[in-house]
């Protein structure tokens, strides 16, 4: 299931597409605002984050409680209509957005953490360590995430916590590869030599000089991965494997299927929100990529 479309190739076999890297990128992140895609991406993502944070304010109704007549179309009282059990859809969408974004955030942080450590270690140490870590990375990359989630949830029952763990443990390879490629190339550069000759220890150089410059492409991959996490959760809910005790956008979209013909709002709003979230995160990634990769910019 898609969700992460890299606009560049992280496989270090093809320098043609990889393009050059920008090293002084600490200031450069604001350049994202110059990119059209980046602007839209930021607006969408921030908008959805705001909805998620303010979910309780915008839509104070408990998304699981019947508060209105069933299957009523959007009105002032219920701007997104109600579902077949009379539950307010706006509350559902707001809380669902919060769930989806929270899921994406936690998984992103965890995968970022694991990926950076593995990638940096592999590139910095080189030799046997590198070989071993690459093998592990390749193996984890091959395991199909969605199907693994399906079977683990079938065996252990649904739950957001195990989904988070599962996705975190299987999504880091991409990040690790990017970090490794970055660190490898940075290793050769002059400022590293300079720092070493000044007497800085190996780990200091890694942490202080190399990693901060290696991180920007990671942010791109992380945002793309976050989008795919949201789609995976939606797909799992569609199959009935979602957490039934939590409102999520996938659960809402799944619930709405029976009523496609009589209550278009039940499908439209959650589906559109999923699409907007994925779109926003991908555009954000695009924008970041534009900043870091001007030659291949969109």
């Amino acid at each position, binding site marked *: 299931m898609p969700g992460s479309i890299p606009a560049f190739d992280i496989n270090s076999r093809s320098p043609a597409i990889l393009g050059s890297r920008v090293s002084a990128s600490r200031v450069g992140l604001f350049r994202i605002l110059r990119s059209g895609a980046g602007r839209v991406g930021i607006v969408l993502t921030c908008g959805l984050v705001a909805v998620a944070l303010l979910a309780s304010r915008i839509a104070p109704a408990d998304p699981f409680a*019947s508060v209105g007549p069933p299957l009523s179309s959007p009105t002032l009282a219920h701007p997104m209509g109600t579902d*077949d*059990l009379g539950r307010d859809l706006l509350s559902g969408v707001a809380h669902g957005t919060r769930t989806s974004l929270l899921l994406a955030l936690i998984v992103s942080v965890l995968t970022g953490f694991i990926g950076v450590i593995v990638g940096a270690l592999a590139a910095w140490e080189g030799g046997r360590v590198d070989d071993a870590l690459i093998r592990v990375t390749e193996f984890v990359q091959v395991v199909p995430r969605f199907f693994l989630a399906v079977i683990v949830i079938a065996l252990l029952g649904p739950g957001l916590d195990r989904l988070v763990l599962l996705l975190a443990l299987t999504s880091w390879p991409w990040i690790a590869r990017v970090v490794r490629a970055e660190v490898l190339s940075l290793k050769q550069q002059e400022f590293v030599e300079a720092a070493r000759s000044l007497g800085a220890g190996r780990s200091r150089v890694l942490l202080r000089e190399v990693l901060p410059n290696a991180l920007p492409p990671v942010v791109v991959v992380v945002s793309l991965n976050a989008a795919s996490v949201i789609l995976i959760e939606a797909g799992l809910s569609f199959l009935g494997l979602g957490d039934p005790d939590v409102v999520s956008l996938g659960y809402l979209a799944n619930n709405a299927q*029976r009523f496609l*013909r009589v209550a278009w709002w039940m499908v439209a709003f959650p589906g559109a929100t999923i699409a907007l979230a994925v779109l926003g995160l991908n555009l954000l990634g695009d924008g970041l990529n534009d900043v870091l990769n001007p030659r291949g910019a969109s």
Partner: protein
Amino acid sequence: MRRGSMTLQAVLVLISVWCLGSVPAVGQDAPVRGGTVVVAIVSDPGHLNPAITTSGATHAAAELLYNGLLGRDERGDPIPELAESWQVEQGGTMYRFRLRDGVKWHDSTPFTASDVKFTFEEVLLKFHARTRASMGALLAGVEAPDDRTVIFRFKQPYAPLLYQLDATEAPIIARHVYQGTDPQTNPANSNPIGTGPFKFASYTKGTEIRLARNPAYFKPGLPYLDGLVMRIIPDLSVQVLALENGEVDFLWELPAPLQSRIKGDSRFQTARTGYHPGGSNCIMTMSFNLERPILKELRVRQAVAQALDRQTFLVQILFGDGKAAAAPISSEIPWAHAAGLNMPKPDRAEAEKLLDGVGWKKEGDGPRTARGVFGVADGTRLSIDFLHFPTFAKYGELVRQQLGAAGIGVVLRPLEPAVFAPTVFKDRNFDSNVISYCNGPDPEIGVRRMYHSSQIGPAPFTNAAAYRNPRVDALFDEASRTVERDKRSRLYRQIQEIVVQELPYYWLVETVSTRAWAARCSGFKAWTGLFAEGAFCRR
């Protein structure tokens, strides 16, 4: 020229009068032969032997391949089928049936009384839940003195027999195919031989089952159709789409939200009925596992009953199509349904008071906590699990919603029928569940098995609550011995009064199905499993 045209006109008028004159009585079209009808079913039945299961999936797909001794008319009363006549003798302890002559199995072997004897003794009484539960202990024996006579002997007068001999309750299967084998694993279950209006043609697992016309069917002239295809379409709303698109001609179940849409469309016809292939007169019933410490306490069950509002279930899940259950026995059996019973009224405040009284205290958000509850450790959260077929997910959600408001946590566990039955009845691994308990045409058939202590066991869809009450057992035993309807009525009323007090179950809603089919087809019988026996379609 003029004369010629006048003659022509006259001839045309004559012809049209002749045609009109030969049109059958008003309201009835002449049946058209031929054509294939596509029927949508919800799940792959797994096998096609309806004698070893009460599963709706198998019966929907396979009943047209078989017959029972008797059939059912629109009101549910018995009509001749494999048996052409019958006598009730010796005060209801003996039933004698005369079988039709010349009935053949699909492989041309003659049908005889020994098939009936074999089916009852070796198959139905072992594997069919309702037959077992109702007749099992009371049947002394089935005799086949000659090829065309079957005699049922009971240990005591048994009133309901004539209502449970149709293809849903007692389909007759072939002795020469099944004798000496295990009926559950015999390969004929996927390649069946029956006596019914249609023969088996092919079974593509996961996709469809094809049936072909039985030219040697014992009812002359029937069936009209060349064949039937049972297409497996798991999603009800896709079934409706397929109906509208002309890919499917007949739906067993029109989902409630789409009913007004299809009813208003002149391309389709609908019919309402209390009969489901899995059984008739069904009530969605919540069972409590009385062996679990939390639910052992009557006041907790009362609290659950008062926290639930049956009317909401009717409105939100069935969209008003059906009835809120007013008694443990369905209102579709009017002489047994106890009107005016003191059913628990929805009253959340009262429910919460009851729970407090037991010792379940509300501490902050979420489910209540045990403080001094007998048999439960202090600090335990009041949380029960709720098992259901995936198609009944809405019931789960409403139960969770309404019980949650009173401080009872509910964990939903959806399970497919194949797994649900063993989990509930064999392993008894559940706190509560919802089951569509079908009463059948007579309470002996579908009600007894829910309450009688002898019906606690691994056979699917028996006494899920593990309810034991010697007084209720005695009342049921007496009712099964009685033949006069009035007396039975009084006995069933007493039973219902007791169980409404003790709440081993909570009865939610009575369900009806709305069948839908393309208007170019007629002759479908919505009230029976042999629904397409007399059906035909115009091009």
